[in-house]
């Protein structure tokens, strides 16, 4: 019955006993690691296209309603946005250092860096809560009681004199702003909400990996879970790197 297949003799003898974490259907740990890396990158590919659909919708509406986008984007506080970007880039650094610690079999520092990354992630989510709370207060959430001019009226009532140079003639009438800025805030909430959801999943993942590291499951040969969650974390950071200029810095120079 021999045809296309001549049964292989036992080539290389099984010198090293397979690492406990090596699964049965892989020949060696290197093949398993390579498969995991490519699998993770394919997953990140789906995430790129997942967020990509939102970015395409954003681009189209930005071309159509540029003035409305510029006007609405000015409502976002640059301070919190900038702080969040710094926090997230910092967490990327600590994540990379955590992966490095796992590579060099330094269990203590792996756990420390992972905890710092988790904390930075929670700080990011905290800042998002602050920003969302401000939007809800100013009736800037699209839907039934969306009211773009509430912010000005609210300021005028409390007698806040708008900062010098702050007040300039908006290029669109209040009715038009009310009509077209809902799209901006719909996209804002969908994009940052989805990103925050991914951040929450990331924090959960960090806790699981920290617990596994604490149980001593990783060593210099087998640290794949740490690296995979690192890839995921860096990806979520990259999404924010694009979100920040697109949403916060639409047209700040007028």
């Amino acid at each position, binding site marked *: 019955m021999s045809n296309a297949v001549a049964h292989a003799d036992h080539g290389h003898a099984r010198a090293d006993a397979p690492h406990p974490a090596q699964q049965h259907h892989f020949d060696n740990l*290197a093949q398993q*690691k*390579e498969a995991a*890396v*490519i699998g993770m*990158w*394919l997953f*990140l*590919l789906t995430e*790129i*296209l997942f967020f*990509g*659909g939102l*970015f*395409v919708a954003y*681009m*189209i509406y930005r*071309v*159509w*309603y540029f003035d409305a986008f510029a006007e609405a984007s000015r409502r976002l506080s*640059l301070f919190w946005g*900038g702080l969040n*970007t*710094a926090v997230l*880039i*910092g967490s*990327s*650094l600590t*994540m*990379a*250092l955590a992966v*490095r610690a796992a*590579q*060099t079999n330094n269990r203590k520092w792996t756990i420390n860096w992972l905890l710092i990354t988790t904390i930075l992630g929670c700080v990011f989510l905290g800042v998002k809560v602050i920003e969302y709370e401000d939007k809800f207060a100013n009736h800037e959430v699209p839907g039934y009681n969306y009211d773009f001019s509430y912010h000005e009226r609210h300021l005028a009532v409390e007698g806040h004199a708008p900062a010098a140079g702050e007040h300039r003639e908006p290029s669109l009438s209040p009715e038009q702003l009310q*009509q*077209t800025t809902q799209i901006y805030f719909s996209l804002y909430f969908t994009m940052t909400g989805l990103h925050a959801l991914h951040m929450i999943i990331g924090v959960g993942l960090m806790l699981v990996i920290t617990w596994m590291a604490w149980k001593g499951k990783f060593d210099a040969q087998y640290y794949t879970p740490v*690296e995979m969650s*690192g*890839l995921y974390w*860096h*990806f979520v*950071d*990259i999404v924010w*790197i*694009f979100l*920040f*200029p*697109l949403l916060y*810095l639409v*047209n*700040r*120079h*007028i």
Partner: protein
Amino acid sequence: MSEHVSPVSLYVTIFLSLMVLTGVTVYSAFVDMGYLNFPVAMLIAGFKASLVVWYFMHVKWQSHLTKLTLATGLFFLAILLAMTLIDYTSKNFTPQPPPTDPAMAVQPH
């Protein structure tokens, strides 16, 4: 395999350059460059993203297949954006406020 372990100094330099680039992005948003603003912002963000991918995510030392996977993703995202823009840029149409609800219409007597 990415058994490659990069020095801590590399990570710190990448981190600092990312922070500097964030500053540059924010600054460049306040400079009026007309229609150039958007491409500049996207270039800076793209460069920052490639820094993170290349060094933090170790793609620099990984197999060609990983690099190919990333490139495929970006290529198909570019297809989605470009071909949707083919329609929107060539459509001689600016958004109109939609027709009103006839129930509230003014009826000629």
